[in-house]
């Protein structure tokens, strides 16, 4: 079974110099329960892809299927979680109030219990009753993860979840990832921190200038190179040389 399927996904943005493709003809299928790391340099189209997957942007061309449905379908939305790149919150709410808002939107049963559970999971319980404007970057990142986990999703979309965290924080988040993985949750995450990717991913996709360059297991991608980072740089160099 595949949880996430993309076929010929293309997104063009209108700019002053005509339409520019941020994502071109992307086709990918992620089997259920897999952790997929989506890698690419800055501006390669990772966020754009994720925005289409969660229904924030409409594809110019192509199809998306999440758990067999469309991202705009309410029933599908109940089953996925999304954490954007550097998530932004209502600053005058407390962390707990914000999660309460999200729990109300999901219309969850036993809201308070679930909120405490998730707060414990991301280790934010001690600051849950402070206003969000007083949070550090790491705490914001944890709250972002908490709101994505609140509805006990089957599929998780995370845009740069490890960004801006110290090594301790990264290791905490990775531990949460592994717990999610045990629960057979499908995780799709964007990153450019390659060391983290090879540890926790079952599958890796590499995107450059909007096109998919590679899609495989980390071990097979690394074959012939010293590590994933070298393999990544080589692959993108080669691809760009071919293109010009």
């Amino acid at each position: 079974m595949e949880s996430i399927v993309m076929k010929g996904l293309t997104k063009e943005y209108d700019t002053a110099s005509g339409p520019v493709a941020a994502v071109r003809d992307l086709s990918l299928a992620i089997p259920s329960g897999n952790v997929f790391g989506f890698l690419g340099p800055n501006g390669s189209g990772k966020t754009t892809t994720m925005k289409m997957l969660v229904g924030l942007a409409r594809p110019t061309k192509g199809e998306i299927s999440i758990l067999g449905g469309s991202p705009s379908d309410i029933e599908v939305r109940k089953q996925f979680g999304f954490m954007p790149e550097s998530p932004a919150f209502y600053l005058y709410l407390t962390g707990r109030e914000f999660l309460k808002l999200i729990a109300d939107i999901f219309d969850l049963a036993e809201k308070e219990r679930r909120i405490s559970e998730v707060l414990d999971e991301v280790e934010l319980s001690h600051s849950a009753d402070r206003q969000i404007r007083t949070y550090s970057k790491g705490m914001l990142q944890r709250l972002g993860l908490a709101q994505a986990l609140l509805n006990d999703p089957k599929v998780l979309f995370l845009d740069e979840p490890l960004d801006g965290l110290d090594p301790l924080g990264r290791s905490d988040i990775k531990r949460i990832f592994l717990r999610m993985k045990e629960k057979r949750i499908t995780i799709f995450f964007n990153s450019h921190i390659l060391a983290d990717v090879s540890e926790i991913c079952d599958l890796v996709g590499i995107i450059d200038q909007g096109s998919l360059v590679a899609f495989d297991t980390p071990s097979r991608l690394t074959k012939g190179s010293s590590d994933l980072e070298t393999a990544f740089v080589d692959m993108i160099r080669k691809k760009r040389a071919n293109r010009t």
Partner: protein
Amino acid sequence: MIRRVLAIAINTFRETFRDRILWSALVVALVIIAFSLFVGSISLGQEARMVVDFGVAAIYVLQIFIAIFIGSMLIYKEMERKTFYLIIPKPLRREEIIAGKCIGLSATVLTVTALSTLALFTVLFVEGVHGFYLPILLSIAYTTAESVLLILLSILFSGLTSPILSAVYTTAFYLIGHSSETLRAIIAATDSTFTKGVLQTAYYILPNLEKFNIRNEIVYGTHPDVRSIALVAIYFVCYAIFLFLLARAMLERKEF
């Protein structure tokens, strides 16, 4: 559905109340109303009318201010700060977001209106001016309805453009909405059938906000009859639905 709308509404209400602009506006209105206390002996007919007129106008300006300026910030702020990234992908219909925002901000207007009306009534009571309470309440109900229309307009515009432009557009609509009579006079004076057609269409599409103005009546202690109240209510509901559908279409097409 109701629960989701309510969740958004409560959040919007809470946010506006944590906004300092709102409190400043409320304080200004209250000071203006309290100022009437010092106008001197107002039990004479003429001056009593002035206090009523003044007070009702202060409340009206406060309502319009909140609807136009805070309303214009509403959707824009969510997009600018990207809080919408956390809300839009949730299992919510776009109309639930619009309804929640509109209800939340309307609740803000209502709360502020209730507080300032209470202040006005206190002033009138202390000054011994009775007999205006019902007409004043009616007039305020009318202007509250007008504010709800302006809230919907500014939500619509704030999804399309920057908050400053949105406030400018909503203000323009507001001014035009109060000039329907002028527009009708222009139509009558126009010869070209094309121009006439365009203006006539505009006349019917643009809101006629003068319908919500009964301030000239109430200072004489009179008020409209049930039939005309019902007509205005119907007009309000139809126009609100029209604006709501437009705002929904705006948010439906929007990308983030």
